[in-house]
């Protein structure tokens, strides 16, 4: 196989994906464009979270709070300073990253359930700041963030298509950056820390600094995701960034496959499309309007259980396994692409191994990991 530099390969794929999205967005109509734009914020936030959990081995149940930081920063910059969207995006990402850095210092001292508890507290507490300082942050009503189509696209350009372009563009950019980061020395160091903190420290790695860095990356992604969510929704309010959102992000990361960027996309798509689809099915089957709102929640639980039973390593884990079974994997691999990835299997096995010691991991989890390591090239 000819060696192509990582960055070049990722960029090439991103450009192809961008071209496909561009063409598709013109064909699919406004509502599908809107849904595409709705998936992107979630992809960005879940990708950051999956890197945090899957690579650095820390957990966060509070990434919805960092999305709130990004969203509110955006609405304030938009409302008071009228910054252009790209500047707002950068501003929101930076402020969220800074918040993440501060929290990361604390997080680096906490382990397991204590870290989960601390981040949970963040998700519960942060949105209520908006109601505490209602004169600046708009209280429960929130702040408006309605950016119209930029002038150079012409007066008749579809708002939804523009939102889809912007959101998906940002999502692609974040995915490329994360993919490179994951493959870089930092990514390798994170995995070393995740697998065994003591061994990593003995090898000369600064464990705390690496963990804080992972937290910063994850909260920066959440901030960018929060900005996109605010843009697509047209408003920020406490009800946009509930504890439910944080849990949903975590669920999406787990459903998609922890540690897998492709999994972040599957998980997010499920998050956005499933509730609307299921509620429509419920309504069209004559279910009363009072009970149909519960259907997506019930179905969500069922999907979660089924996926965890059938594909313990998430949807992307399942896709990889299918690809391996059918031999598509090897074919793509020869071309330089592969649907399988560092994937959930590695992470799942490492978490199990950490908890129970070597050899205790389930057969389904350990085997692919070992196999990948053996295959390493």
């Amino acid at each position, binding site marked *: 196989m000819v060696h192509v530099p*990582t960055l070049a390969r*990722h960029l090439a*794929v*991103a450009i*192809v*994906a961008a071209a*496909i*999205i561009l063409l598709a*967005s013109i064909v*699919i*109509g*406004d*509502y*599908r464009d809107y*849904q*595409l734009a709705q998936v992107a914020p979630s992809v960005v936030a879940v*990708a950051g979270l999956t890197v945090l959990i899957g690579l650095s081995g820390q957990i966060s149940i509070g990434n919805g709070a960092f999305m709130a930081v990004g969203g509110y920063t955006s609405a304030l910059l938009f409302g008071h300073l009228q910054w252009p969207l790209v500047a707002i995006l950068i501003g929101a990402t930076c402020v969220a990253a800074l918040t993440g850095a501060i929290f990361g210092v604390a997080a680096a001292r906490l382990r397991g359930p204590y870290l989960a508890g601390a981040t949970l507290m963040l998700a519960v507490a942060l949105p209520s700041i908006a*109601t505490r300082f*209602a004169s600046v942050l708009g*209280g*429960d*009503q*929130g702040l*408006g963030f*309605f950016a*119209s189509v930029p002038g150079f696209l012409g007066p008749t350009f579809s*708002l*939804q298509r523009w939102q889809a372009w912007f959101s998906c563009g940002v999502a692609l950019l974040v*995915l*490329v950056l*994360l*993919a*490179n980061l*994951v*493959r870089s020395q930092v990514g390798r160091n994170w995995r070393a820390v995740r697998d065994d903190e003591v061994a990593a420290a003995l090898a000369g790695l600064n464990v705390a600094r690496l963990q804080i860095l992972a937290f910063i990356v994850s909260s920066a992604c959440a901030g960018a995701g929060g900005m996109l969510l605010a843009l*697509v*929704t*047209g*408003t920020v*309010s406490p*009800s*946009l960034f509930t504890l439910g959102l944080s849990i949903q992000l975590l669920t999406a990361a787990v459903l998609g496959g922890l540690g897998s*960027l*492709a999994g972040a*996309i*599957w998980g997010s*798509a499920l998050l956005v499309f499933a509730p609307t689809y299921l509620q429509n099915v419920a309504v069209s089957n004559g279910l009363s*309007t*009072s009970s149909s*709102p519960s259907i997506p929640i019930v179905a969500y639980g069922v999907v979660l259980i089924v996926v965890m039973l059938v594909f313990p390593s998430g949807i992307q884990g399942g896709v990889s396994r299918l690809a391996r079974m059918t031999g598509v994997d090897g074919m793509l691999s020869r071309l330089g*692409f*592969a649907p*399988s*990835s*560092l*994937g959930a299997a590695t992470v799942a096995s490492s978490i199990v191994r950490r908890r129970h010691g070597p050899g205790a991991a389930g057969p389904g989890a350990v085997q692919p990991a070992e196999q*990948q*390591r053996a*295959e390493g*090239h």
Partner: protein
Amino acid sequence: MISSHRAGVAGVAGLAVLSILAAACGSGGSGSSGSALTNSAPGITPTTITIGSHQPLTGIAAPGYSEIAPAANAYFQYLNAHGGIYGRKIVYKYLNDQYNPALTSTVVHQLVLQDNVYAIFNGLGTPTHLAVAPFLNSDHVPDVFVASGCECWNSTASLPDTFGWQLDYVREGKILGAYIEQHFKNKKIGFFFQGDEFGQDGVKGLSYEIPKKQIVAEKSYDPTNINIGPQVDALKAAGAQVVVSFTVPAFTALLKLNMLGLKYSPQLVVSDVGSDPITLAGLLAAFAKNKTAGFGNSLTQGIVTDGYLPSLGQASNSWIALFTKIHDQYIPKLPLDGNVLYGMSVGYAFVQAMFKAGKNPTRADLVNAINAGLPQGASVAPYAYSSSDHNGITGAYIATISNGALVPNTGVWVTDDSATGAITAYTAAQPAAPASGIPSP
């Protein structure tokens, strides 16, 4: 080396695949026509007019308000059974947003972009509707008769396609304030209000009329936090003898119960949106877990409020008779209360506007029709509609709740939404409901 880079490659490729999937799900346009009735606008076919709305069918604002859309729909069914609008039937799709602005955005995008509704009608709530009004206006979707009295709907420059309908909270605050100023002279007044534009507009109107020295406390609440004990405590501590509340029904009930708990019994003055006696009585009985007959009514007794629709107590009123008939025929399971009355009245106003918009209306035709003014319908005061004013009903009467019904204390007062505009008596008799129950074209 572990093949970690593939995560990124697969990730990016996945996003692309997703967009193709979305493309595959997309669908094309529709139909044609032959008769005089045409597909004159999105959502309008020769046989139907499809309109949409966002409503709190579950959640904190659902008690009472969840009846509004079914009531409006009952009026539309009555209309459809009696010839419709130039032969077209109204199809009314209302989706649940749980009074959550994030959900409002999702359901309204679905209604406009996927279901192709002609207009958004009577979208309920101030914080919720604020999330979608800019989008609707940028797509030039008529955004008619928002179910909220926020002054924000009267922004003809930035929201030219948005219209309020009910008495706006500034006018309502002024009218309540004038009554308080006349009848509770020199008493200490406290305000209790929802911490958004709903409550703030109300307080604005009240402050135009009530002298500042009389106001001893102003306390707000968040609709997501039902613990209002501290606020009620503060109102009591400030010695407020009259408490004016701009609240949704659930919080009016909570306010009353918290006051009982503190053995604090000031005169309650409640905004129309939070004072429907039947809804309140039900909530009070449910919250207090007291099933004694008449318990709820005993607690609403003596509350002062205002009404911009005829009182349900006036059975001989032609509008009450019409809406009672429709209620009994189409939605007999719902209580015949202020919310049902509201829903049918606003439905009637929409039908008035649609008739005025013409036989084959575009979206702009509806907006222009309302801009040209609407004749008074079920409301006790006329509409303000013009191309420079998108407020709706301009006045109300003051009433006291007695045995679960509004008993008017005053005639109808009308005013404008400015700080200095006078409050005057409106003496013209309300036009009777048409015998057919349907406005004439």
